[in-house]
């Protein structure tokens, strides 16, 4: 039996439709696919922790502190003109960090444009992760090497990629899970729907993490969907839907971890909705006062992922002042390093514009590259007699340079 034949949608009769008998029943039981009424939480529940989990919670804390600092630093870099734009995930660090930590080495992460932090938490160099946002033309990191897809700007379009990659890995017999991140707004796109459906039909090892942070730029969730929750979308694909407090890092990690394990075991995809909040404006260029008030934000400031975890760790005596200070210092050093390395413009070679459009540049692109090279050389040449007359810079390969050019011209001028 092949992988595809094991998919859950298929009954024994293979491709045959359900007969029209009075005994028609749903093809799978919907009950276990529906999310719980309340979001899953761990912080404040008095959950018992073994040693491994204690370590994990501390590691999560470290990630949150670094993440918070990273967000702050990146936003500062936009003000200094060192980044073209930065969509901060302040307030959402629990989701970002837990997503990265839920994956094994060989797994793939498919981040959305807001998820630089998850990319960094996965181990990508903090400067490289900012390459696109900096105004450079490429992802910076090597996606195949780090198993992190490019940050996806067109919303929800990365979700089918995650499905295809996970499906391909499964077909090849490889143990790879893909985790794809999307926002509440992104769930409205057709690509979200198609990705979920393909994943379910193919039983692909994918985990979909929706960060419901309340807004799509200025548009609040109520204008985005009328669903009981976004996790309720899962049943429509025959996929389990899970709801989690997105500011409770251990809870997010646990739900994602279970979903990853389920996928790894051949159980197929899971849709996870994490309830969180975008504390800052959409990006540095946005003015959030136009669509929400400080009062709207306030309750969420009291439910801060960093503060929540820190309080719990201190309560449980899993974090000393000294340790907290050390982590803060480390984060400070990371920020200083980031600042320093972002302080210079990257050296971009204009000819790279043509280098990777195709495996081999076409003749046509080589001509264009040559033209640009010529222009740059002319600009660089300081000799004013040669450089100031644009007419001196000529592209080649045109008919006016053909052998019979002059002759033709003379006929014409005659």
């Amino acid at each position, binding site marked *: 039996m092949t992988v595809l034949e094991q998919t859950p949608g298929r009954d024994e009769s293979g491709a045959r439709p359900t007969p029209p008998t009075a005994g028609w029943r749903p093809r799978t039981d919907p009950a276990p696919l529906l999310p719980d009424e309340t979001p899953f939480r761990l912080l404040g529940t008095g959950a018992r922790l073994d040693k491994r989990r204690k370590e994990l919670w501390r590691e999560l804390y470290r990630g949150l502190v670094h993440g918070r600092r990273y967000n702050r630093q990146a936003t500062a870099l936009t003000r200094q003109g060192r980044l073209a734009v930065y969509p901060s995930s302040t307030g959402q660090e629990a989701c970002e960090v837990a997503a990265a930590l839920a994956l094994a080495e060989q797994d793939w992460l498919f981040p959305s444009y807001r998820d630089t932090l998850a990319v960094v938490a996965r181990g990508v160099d903090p400067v490289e992760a900012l390459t696109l946002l900096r105004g450079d033309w490429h992802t910076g990191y090597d996606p195949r090497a780090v198993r992190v897809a490019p940050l996806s700007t067109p919303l929800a379009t990365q979700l089918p990629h995650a499905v295809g990659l996970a499906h391909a890995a499964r077909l090849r017999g490889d143990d790879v899970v893909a985790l794809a991140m999307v926002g509440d707004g992104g769930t409205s796109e057709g690509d979200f729907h198609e990705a979920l459906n393909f994943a379910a039909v193919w039983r692909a090892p994918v985990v979909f993490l929706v960060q419901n942070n309340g807004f799509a730029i200025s548009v609040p969730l109520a204008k985005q969907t009328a669903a009981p929750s976004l996790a309720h979308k899962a049943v429509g694909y025959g996929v389990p839907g899970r709801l989690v407090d997105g500011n409770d890092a251990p809870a997010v990690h646990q739900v994602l971890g279970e979903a990853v394990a389920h996928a790894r075991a051949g159980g197929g995809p899971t849709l996870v909705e994490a309830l969180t909040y975008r504390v800052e404006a959409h990006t540095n*260029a946005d003015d959030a006062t136009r669509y929400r008030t400080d009062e709207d934000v306030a309750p969420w400031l009291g439910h801060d992922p960093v503060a929540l975890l820190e309080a719990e760790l201190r309560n449980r005596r899993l974090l000393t002042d000294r340790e907290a200070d050390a982590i803060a210092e480390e984060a400070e050093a990371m920020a200083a390093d980031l600042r320093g390395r972002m302080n210079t413009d990257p050296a971009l070679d204009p000819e790279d514009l043509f280098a990777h459009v195709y495996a081999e540049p076409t003749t046509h692109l080589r001509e264009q590259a040559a033209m640009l090279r010529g222009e740059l050389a002319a600009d660089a040449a300081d000799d004013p007699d040669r450089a100031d007359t644009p007419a001196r810079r000529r592209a080649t390969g045109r008919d006016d340079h053909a052998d019979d050019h002059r002759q033709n011209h003379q006929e014409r001028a005659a």
Partner: protein
Amino acid sequence: MTTATSTPARPAPPGGPAPTTMAQAINRALRDAMAADDTVHVLGEDVGALGGVFRVTDGLTAEFGEERCTDTPLAEAGILGTAAGMAMYGLRPVVEMQFDAFAYPAFEQLVSHVARMRNRTRGSLPMPLTIRVPYGGGIGGVEHHSDSSEVYYMATPGLHVVTPATVADAYGMLRSAIASDDPVLFLEPKRLYWSKETIDLSSPPACEPLGRAVVRRAGTSATLISYGPSVSVCLEAAEAAREEGWELEVLDLRTLVPFDDETAAAAVRRTGRAVVVHEASGFAGPGAEIAARLTERCFHHLQAPVLRVTGFDIPYPPPMLEKHHLPGVDRVLDAVARLQWESDHTEGGAA
């Protein structure tokens, strides 16, 4: 993501000439159209409280209510598809696509329905839709925020495709687009949003109708043909060309579909030399049609082939490199220099 401005497009004061940005003029055109005709509805992502990421719809929800200016769910095919349905009921929707590249999800709705509904129904279901698309580069946008997608629309029969190059045109052409009984792609050059003119929007200047090109500068040596964001580049180039002894004519096409053959061919015949300038990639770009059709019509008047100065045939480059991609004054003048001038050829012969 979105490289937005935080400067609201505050509408110009109601009376008298005042410095006005293109964003403000578009905003005013929307307001005036909505006030004049209650079937005009604006819809799109963030067009409500936020006023759009470029603030072009600023104040419309406050003035006309959420039902007239509506924040939609985040789904472009859904936006255009529901707008088509609204048009089927007789409304005049004005749709905002947040950025050029984010109009692509709506491509099937556009090509298979919006462009063809009138035809398929023998006029029973016209599509008096306006689709506003901020387009083009030059604003330091990260990837997917600077595409020049006009040729996809030009190649689709059933659509009108227009783009203003001046603040006054932005107002007048948008009013005309909204009034049109056909679907109009109204392409807004992003980097001109903050360009200013002193105009009186309470009695907007007369504007040529859609479908007419306009000569922005008279000249005798050669004709620069352009539209939208590249018109100002051509005007600058024409200024600079005087040093070289050229008097360049500058034609602003304004409407790409339907194409104003009469004005464009006349301009080319007048000078016998022409360069088409646009930001979009050259290969199978808008300039291909412009050059081809003008050559068909003016062949024996041409002293040289119609040349094209365009973006390269590459994915739109990032902020740090876009200056190399965008047609600039130098590149335009280089092309003019290649138009086989007699003096040039003498030189050439001596070289």
